[in-house]
C-alpha cells in the first residue's frame, strides 16, 4: 500500500505542469548521511544550514526557500539514487551537502548533465577541485591539501623536525598525509614513517602506536575521524607517549562533538584547521550566539561549513533576485559571492571553484575542565592548491 501511495505521489509530483517560477518555492536539495555513523555530523551541518536560511528570513525576493533532505547513507550508489530523486522528482534548483568524496564523485556527472549547481559542504578530496572539477560544482568546505599544506613549515619553526604519520586507510587521511609530507619535507623536516590502519574493522591502534614509538619521532601526525578519532586519542594517552612524542593533527581528530568523550586526552594537540568556535571576530561571535540560542550547543566546524554552503547559495540567489530559470546564471552568481563570515573572509577561486579561506594554527588546551582551542597563528587567504583542474572559463 505504501508502495502504491509512494508511486502515486511520485507520479503526481512529476507531472505537475511547470507553473510560472515566481510562485513556486525555491528548492534546495540536501544530500547527507543522516543514518549510520556520520549521522551526528550530518545533523550539525544541517543545523548550520538552517541558521543561514533563517538569516535570510527563509525567502528570497518573496519566494519561499525549501530544503529537501535525503539520506545518502554515505554510499555513492545510494547518493546517486537520492540525487536522481532530488533532481528529477523534486526538481531542486541547487544541490548541496555531501560528506563523502565518493558520493560527490558519483553525483557530479549526473548533476552536470542536468545542469544543477552543486555546492559541497564537506567532502574534501583534492580531486573534486582538481582533476574532477566542474563548472557546475563548487566547494566551500576545504580540500585536504588546503588544510595541511602550511602545517609542516609551521611545525618546523616550532622545532618539530621528525614526524611519524598515522591515519585511517582511505582517501581522506592519505591525501592529508601526502599534502602534509610535501610541505613538511620542503621546509626541512623528515618523515620517519607512516602507517594506515584498515578502515571499518577493529579499532586497536596498539600495534601502530607501538610501531610509531619505536621510530622515535618528535611528533605523530594523526588523521582519524568519528569513533576512530575518540579511540585513537584515548589509546594514545593510555600508552603514555605524550611527553616524548606529541600529537599533531588537522580537522577531524578533536571536533567539538567528540571532545566530551575524549576527555583530557584531547588536550595538548597542535592542529591546523579552517575554523574554531573560539575565533574572536564579530561575525563569529554573532554566529555562535544564534547557534547557542537555537541548538543549546557550540556550533563547530561542521555547523559553520553547512552555514557557509547555504549562505553561498542564498547570496547568489539574492543577487539574481530569486530567478532560478537560468541555471548557468546561478552557477556564475555562486562563483562571484564573497563575504566576511564566521570563518573569516570567504571567496571562490574561479580557477577551480574552490574556497579561499584562512587557515588557523591552533592548540587544544585544558581550561577549567573543558578542552578548548587557542589560536596561535593565522595563515590568511589560503587558496586551494589542488592541481589538475581544467575548466573552460
Amino acid at each position, binding site marked *: 500500500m505504501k508502495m502504491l501511495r509512494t508511486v502515486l505521489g511520485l507520479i503526481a509530483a512529476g507531472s505537475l505542469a511547470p507553473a510560472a517560477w515566481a510562485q513556486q518555492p525555491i528548492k534546495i536539495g540536501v544530500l547527507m548521511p543522516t543514518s549510520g555513523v556520520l549521522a551526528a555530523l550530518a545533523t550539525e551541518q544541517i543545523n548550520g544550514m538552517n541558521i543561514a536560511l533563517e538569516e535570510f528570513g527563509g525567502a528570497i525576493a518573496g519566494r519561499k526557500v525549501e530544503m529537501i533532505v535525503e539520506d545518502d547513507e554515505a554510499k555513492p550508489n545510494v547518493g546517486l539514487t537520492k540525487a536522481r530523486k532530488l533532481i528529477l522528482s523534486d526538481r531542486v534548483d541547487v544541490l548541496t551537502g555531501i560528506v563523502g568524496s565518493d558520493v560527490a564523485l558519483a553525483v557530479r556527472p549526473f548533476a552536470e548533465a542536468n545542469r544543477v549547481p552543486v555546492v559541497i559542504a564537506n567532502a574534501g578530496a583534492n580531486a573534486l577541485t582538481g582533476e574532477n572539477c566542474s563548472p557546475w560544482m563548487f566547494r566551500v568546505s576545504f580540500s585536504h591539501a588546503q588544510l595541511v599544506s602550511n602545517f609542516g613549515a609551521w611545525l618546523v619553526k616550532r622545532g618539530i623536525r621528525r614526524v611519524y604519520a598515522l591515519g585511517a586507510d582511505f582517501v581522506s587521511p592519505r591525501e592529508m598525509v601526502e599534502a602534509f609530507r610535501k610541505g613538511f619535507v620542503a621546509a626541512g623536516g623528515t618523515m620517519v614513517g607512516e602507517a594506515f590502519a584498515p578502515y571499518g574493522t577493529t579499532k*586497536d591502534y*596498539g*600495534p*601502530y602506536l607501538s*610501531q610509531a614509538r619505536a621510530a622515535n619521532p618528535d611528533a605523530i601526525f594523526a588523521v582519524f575521524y568519528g569513533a576512530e578519532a575518540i*579511540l585513537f586519542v584515548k589509546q594514545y594517552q*593510555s*600508552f603514555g607517549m605524550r611527553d616524548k612524542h606529541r600529537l599533531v593533527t588537522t580537522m577531524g581528530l578533536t571536533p567539538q562533538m567528540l571532545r566530551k568523550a575524549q576527555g583530557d586526552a584531547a588536550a595538548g594537540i597542535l592542529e591546523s584547521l579552517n575554523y574554531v568556535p573560539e575565533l574572536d571576530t564579530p561575525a563569529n561571535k554573532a554566529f555562535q550566539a544564534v547557534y547557542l540560542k537555537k541548538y543549546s550547543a557550540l556550533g563547530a566546524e561542521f555547523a559553520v561549513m553547512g552555514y557557509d554552503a547555504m549562505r553561498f547559495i542564498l547570496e547568489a540567489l539574492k543577487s539574481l533576485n530569486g530567478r532560478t530559470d537560468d541555471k548557468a546564471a546561478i552557477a556564475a552568481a555562486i562563483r562571484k559571492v564573497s563575504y566576511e563570515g564566521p570563518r573569516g573572509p570567504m571567496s571562490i577561486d574561479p580557477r577551480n571553484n574552490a574556497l579561499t579561506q584562512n587557515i588557523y594554527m591552533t592548540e587544544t588546551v585544558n581550561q577549567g575542565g573543558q578542552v578548548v582551542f587557542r589560536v596561535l597563528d593565522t595563515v590568511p587567504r589560503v587558496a586551494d592548491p589542488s592541481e589538475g583542474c581544467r575548466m573552460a572559463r
Partner: protein
Amino acid sequence: MLLDPAFLAAQLLNSLQLAMLLFLLAIGLSVIFGLMNFLNLAHGTIYMLSAFIAYSVTQHLGSFWLALALAPLAGAAIGLALFVVLLRRVEASGHLVQVLVTVGVIYVGMDAVRMIYGDLPNDVPLPAVLSGTVDVFGLGYPAYRFFIIGIGLAVQLALYFALERTRLGAVVRAGVDDRATVETLGIDIGRVFRLVFAIGAYLAGLAGVISAPVFGVYPGMDVMIIVLVLIVVVVGGLGSFHGAILGSLLIGFADTFGKILLPNFAMMLIYCVMAAVLVIRPEGLIPSRRFRA
C-alpha cells in the same frame, strides 16, 4: 626494529589482548552453533548493548567496577529474552531463516541504541586504578590491557573447569558431539540450551564492558567486530572450546602482526588466512567430533 624486545613485547601483548576479546565473543557463538545448530549473527548486538549499558552505569553511578558487575548480567538477560521470545522459534527453520531473523535483530538493535543514546559515539573512561602504564622493557604499556588479558585467562580457566569437571559441562560437550543421543538419555535439552545461551550472552556482555574503555561505545560497533568473530569461530572449529582458544590466538596474532609486517595487505590478510585454513582443513583447526569428516 622488529627484534627490539620492547617493541616485540608490546606487539605480543597487543596480540594477546585482541585474542582474549575475540575469544570471549567466539566461545559463546561457537558453542551455541555447535549445540543448537543456530547461527547467531546477533551475538554482536548483545556485545554492543552491554557496552551501552556499561556506559550508562558509569555515567549515572560513577563506577566502572559496578558496570563490570552489572552490564554482563544485563547482557545475559537480554540474550535470554531474545532467545526465548524470538530465536527459539526459528531454531529449526534452517540457517537462512536464522540469518534473516538475526540480521533483523542487528538492524533493530542498531537504531534502538541510536534512538536511546543519540548518534554520537560515547566513552567509558578507564578506571582510575588501571589508567597508568606498566614498564615493559623500558617503555610504558597500558595497564588496562593487562587487565583485559587477565580477565580473558580467568574466563578460559573457569570455562575449562566447567566443561571438564561439572555435569553441565559434560552434557554440553556431549550435546555438541551428538545431540540426538543426549536427548534420548532423558536430559532436558531445552533447559541446557537456555543456560548455554545465557552464558554465551553473558560472555559477550563481558567482552562489551571490558572493551568499552579501549574500543569505545558507538552504534555499529557490533557489525565491525562480528565478521572477525565469525572468522575465529570457523577457523578454530565449530563447537570446540580448544578451537576457540586456538582460533582467537591465531587471528589475534595474524591481525596484529599482519598490520605491522604487511601493511599493504592488512585488509586482506585475515580473509586469506581463513580461506587458507579452510582449504587445508575444511572443518577448522580443532573441530568438535560432530563436524569432523
